[in-house]
């Protein structure tokens, strides 16, 4: 959501230093010309905000930057524009561009050269919600100073990994699209603090998302998530997390499609768990490399390692019986699990209230997030 200055609820009217709000005539021949004429008539080197609020039959007039060189906020939402063109490229001070509810999304919807224009450095807020974008427009990847981007309510099926180029991004709104997965590159946005992915078709969250150390608010409601990666407990600054409307697994689930480990895997495990010494000259290079890839079983009570073969296990982090968050764990074998569940035969109710020691600490942090 754009900052308060641009999210004004008030109606129109001229007045207020630097604000020009233009109401356009409903119809008339040569309407595009009428718009240009009226804007030119009101040209000013002091106008800082321009709001156009009626339907336009053509593109924005080319003279926009000449008539309003000091423009900082431009709102062309709901004007029916199918493309934003070169008229934007000359606006040297534009900080906020609102173009919601238009017909943008086809090729050339944003002007080429956007990344080289003066506004590539000045633009902080871009709102393209309620348009027809099927993918992240490449033209905006050069907006290095962009802090807030909204593409809510478009037609995105995926998020391009190139989004990591928007290195100043703090606020990213992608709710209400058709997104099925999240690229791990999203985690490379160092300042991201507000991420909205609600009302999409997302089935899983990449564990790399836990690297978003600045994340304060994560909106995941109304997706297709059945579990979350356990790394999500690492998001220590998270204050708000929405999960409703996901088919989150409620009962303890074991992955029954565990594939038995290969001979290579078993040999590797034996080498590691018995600390059989070896030197690089003892083994072919590929086996030396293989042995270096051993992962420790996350069960702290188990000293086991695994290479490729592991059991996905959904573990519930229980907050004093009030909330259950299914987290994905990887264990080295189906027999490996925390002591309580392996000791008890009645697996369901007992194991639902299990928490590993380390998970309890992280759980307290997440509890604060979820329960306020």
């Amino acid at each position, binding site marked *: *959501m754009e*900052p*308060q200055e641009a*999210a*004004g*609820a*008030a*109606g129109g009217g001229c007045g207020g230093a630097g604000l020009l709000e233009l109401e356009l005539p409903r119809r008339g021949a040569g309407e595009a010309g009428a718009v240009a004429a009226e804007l030119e008539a009101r040209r000013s080197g002091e106008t800082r905000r321009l709001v156009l609020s009626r339907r336009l039959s053509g593109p924005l007039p080319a003279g926009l930057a000449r008539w309003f060189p000091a423009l900082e906020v431009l709102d062309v939402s709901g004007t029916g524009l199918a493309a934003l063109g070169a008229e934007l490229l000359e606006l040297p001070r534009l900080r906020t561009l609102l173009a*919601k*509810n238009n017909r943008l999304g086809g090729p050339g919807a944003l002007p080429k050269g956007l990344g080289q224009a003066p506004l590539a450095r000045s633009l902080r807020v871009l709102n393209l*919600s*309620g348009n027809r974008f099927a993918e992240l427009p490449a033209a905006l990847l050069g907006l290095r100073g962009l802090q807030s981007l*909204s593409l*809510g*309510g478009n037609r995105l099926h995926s998020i391009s990994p190139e989004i990591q180029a928007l290195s100043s991004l703090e*606020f990213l*709104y992608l*709710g*209400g699209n058709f997104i099925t997965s999240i690229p791990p590159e999203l985690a490379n946005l160092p300042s991201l603090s*507000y991420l*909205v992915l*609600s*009302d999409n078709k997302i089935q899983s969250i990449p564990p790399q998302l836990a690297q978003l150390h600045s994340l*304060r*608010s994560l*909106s995941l*409601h109304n997706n297709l998530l059945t579990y979350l990666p356990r790394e999500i407990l690492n998001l220590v600054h998270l*204050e*708000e*997390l*929405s*999960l*409703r409307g996901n088919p*989150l697994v*409620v009962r303890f689930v074991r992955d029954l499609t565990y594939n038995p480990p290969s001979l290579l895997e078993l040999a590797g495990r034996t080498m590691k768990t018995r600390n059989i010494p070896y030197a690089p000259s003892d083994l072919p290079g590929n086996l030396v490399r293989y042995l270096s890839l051993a992962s420790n079983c996350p069960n702290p009570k188990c000293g086991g390692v695994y290479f490729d073969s592991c059991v996905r296990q959904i573990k519930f982090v229980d907050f004093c*019986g*009030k*909330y*259950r968050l299914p987290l994905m764990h990887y264990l080295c074998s189906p027999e490996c699990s925390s002591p309580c569940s392996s000791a008890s035969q009645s697996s369901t109710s007992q194991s639902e209230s299990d928490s590993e020691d380390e998970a309890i600490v992280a759980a307290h942090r997440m509890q604060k997030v*979820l*329960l*306020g």
Partner: protein
Amino acid sequence: MEQPVQTEVWKAQTLQELIQILHRLFSSDKVSVEEVQALMESYESNPVEWMKFAQFDQYRYTRNLVDKGNGKFNLMILCWGEGHGSSIHDHTDSHCFMKILQGNLKETLFEWPGKKGTGAMTKKSERVLGENQCAYISDSIGLHRVENTSHTESAVSLHLYSPSFDSCNTFDQRTGHKHKVKMTFYSQFGERTPGATAVSQENN
């Protein structure tokens, strides 16, 4: 509140007038729910009149106190950014009126969870409220979740609570478990309350 023998029909031309009539109505011992609801609906939202109370937070919805109703009620304006929603909550034995001043809000009604709160909560109904419509809820009707489901428009609503309350229970939809939360104001009478962040209620 009871139904009086004759229900007066009030029309509030401005927000100030609405507040004045509310003060008059609530000064009596018997106040009618229908009368208050009709009065709230009669006011045609004029953004110029309530703009100063409409202070948004980018992370979550805000509660902005407008009037303290001489201790009989609290009148406040809630600001919902795109996608902002509340938890499922109760109303601490109070009457709650909610009028849309701008945009749309979806209200989902839930049954009270059973004893011990086991199992998923039962949805009763849902509806989308449009500008100037006024909904009413109390604990005897049930629980609700309110959300701005729009990804492009923000929403503003006017709430009246009588008696006023500063804490309520939020409920986990998946289990019915409840948790008491304290509610705070983002701004009071148009002034930002220093140090108070927007309400961080469970939004699950």
